């Protein structure tokens, strides 16, 4: 189909009568860092949730490495309610659960951190390795997979070292400071061996210095792990500094796309963020 790592075509998500994401088409290329920005409630996380299989889109299709992974069109009750565009363009229905999407190589972090709170840092990352394990239940129960298990643990330890979490390995996840929890979420996502990493507001709640560190960190993992990064972020410093390209959503609609410079000077983006003075 195309050479993009990720491509969204006419993606629409409608909850009842509310259109959260409207006819979103975009792409992310290999090795890029692309940001999705927009005011609160613009539908950014909803877009992520569709890509990762949490929600089935109402209409539209998603391609990963040129292969269609998700496709849907309005069905049942939605046929009447549907307000988005491009209906009828996607005749086939293909829905995948989040775990299948992760297996394909798309990993994500969450806006409101979702660690396995009562488990240790080490376990949090080790769990993400389970998916790639080949051992069946019996093999795993009777420890016939000792070699694989050792490899999983070594791999986990290596990740923790790279992410500078190694000394915290036996700490309970919920006891970590906020910044480290975000880092652990990224470590956990990396442990699933993704080729595309989705970061949902990785800098939320961070101070400028932490944000600066994060900027360097994201670039570093992109290079080290040969990743493509697609992220949602509100910290404009970070976004402008790091992104190769930016997409801007407002009320579910794509209002601008381009390089940081182009987006920064786009009148519609400025209006969306600052609000248009209606009464002027």
């Amino acid at each position, binding site marked *: 189909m195309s050479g993009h790592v990720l491509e969204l075509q006419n993606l629409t998500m409608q*909850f009842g009568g509310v259109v959260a994401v409207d006819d979103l088409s975009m792409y992310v290329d290999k090795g890029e860092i692309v940001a999705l920005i927009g005011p609160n409630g613009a539908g950014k*996380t909803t877009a992520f*949730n569709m890509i990762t299989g*949490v929600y089935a889109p109402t209409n539209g299709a998603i391609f990963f490495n040129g292969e269609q992974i998700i496709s849907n069109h309005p069905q049942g009750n939605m046929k009447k309610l549907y307000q988005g565009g491009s209906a009828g363009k996607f005749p086939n229905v293909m829905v995948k659960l989040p775990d299948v999407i992760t297996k394909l190589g798309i990993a994500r972090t*969450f806006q409101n951190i979702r660690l396995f709170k009562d488990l240790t840092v080490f376990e949090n990352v080790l769990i993400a390795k389970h998916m790639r394990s080949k051992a069946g239940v019996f093999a795993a129960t009777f420890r016939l997979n000792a070699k694989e298990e050792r490899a999983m643990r070594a791999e986990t330890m290596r990740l923790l070292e790279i992410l500078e979490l190694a000394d915290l390995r036996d700490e309970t996840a919920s006891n970590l400071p906020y910044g480290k929890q975000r880092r652990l979420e990224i470590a956990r996502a990396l442990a699933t061996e993704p080729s595309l990493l989705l970061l949902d507001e990785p800098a939320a709640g961070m101070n400028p210095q932490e944000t600066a560190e994060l900027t360097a960190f994201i670039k570093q993992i992109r290079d080290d792990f040969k990743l493509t990064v697609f992220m949602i972020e509100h910290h404009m410093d970070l976004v402008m500094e790091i992104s190769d390209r930016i997409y801007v959503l407002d009320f579910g609609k794509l209002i601008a796309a381009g390089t940081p410079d182009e987006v920064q000077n786009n009148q519609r983006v400025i209006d969306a963020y600052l609000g248009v003075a209606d009464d002027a």
Partner: protein
Amino acid sequence: MSLTTILQHCLTGISLGGAYALIAIGYTMVYGILRLINFAHGDIFMMAGYFMIFAMASFPWQVAIPLVIVGTIVMGVVIERVAYKPLRTAPRMSIMISAIGVSYLLQNLATYLFTAIPRGYPEIPFLKKIFHIGALSASLVTFLTPVLTILLVIFLMLLIKKTKVGMAMRAVSKDFETSQLMGIKINNIISATFVIGSALAAVGSILYFTDRMSVTPFSGTLPGLKCFVAAVFGGIGSIPGAVVGGFVIGIAETLLVAMGYSTFSDAFTFLLLIVMLLFRPTGLFGEKSTDKV
């Protein structure tokens, strides 16, 4: 079966369903507000049965009935304060286990105090008077139950739709935390819910046991579970739903027994529950809610 027999069974079923409906409302209201299956509700209903036995031993029914209702209300509210309130912030599993614990405690307490031998339920003479309509005959309680149920439900609906307490209840059931921020005294509202639920359970208990004639410490378990199923069937949180559910289960159960499948009458209730959960998890009148990721 002749038409008369079928109608006769339906009448019994409607009467049983009325009592179920009253208990189911207690489940649906508590679940609506606390998101808790109040496993103890069936045992509150059972205890109300014993209260009636003792109240009737020393008072005429005109005094005994209000006494039983008040006693049941006090018990319901105390249970909430002691066993559920301390667990407000606890994981949901804890509070559900607490409810099971209360149920266990009430059953053991009843066994200890009143022994496991069935106790005869006192007769209220005018309730037992036999009436005839055409070829159908039944005692007054059979006719009275559905009527009383409907009246109580209308009253309750008015309370919830028109009064301030009712509005607060609706708000709390929509969003616990936000309504707290809006200045609603959560604990009072929850107590009010238990007052209503327990009062209805007491009325339901009088109607149910007058028909059944005896009480044991375990008479609350199965009716309790069935009424919870009724609440789920109607859509948890919806009062009309609970009433419809109660009637459906009451009638179905009576007909199954009449057809000779009495061992399956309990199983049927659960089958209904499972089928409902599969095809319409929100129940007949329930609202859909989605989890935010």
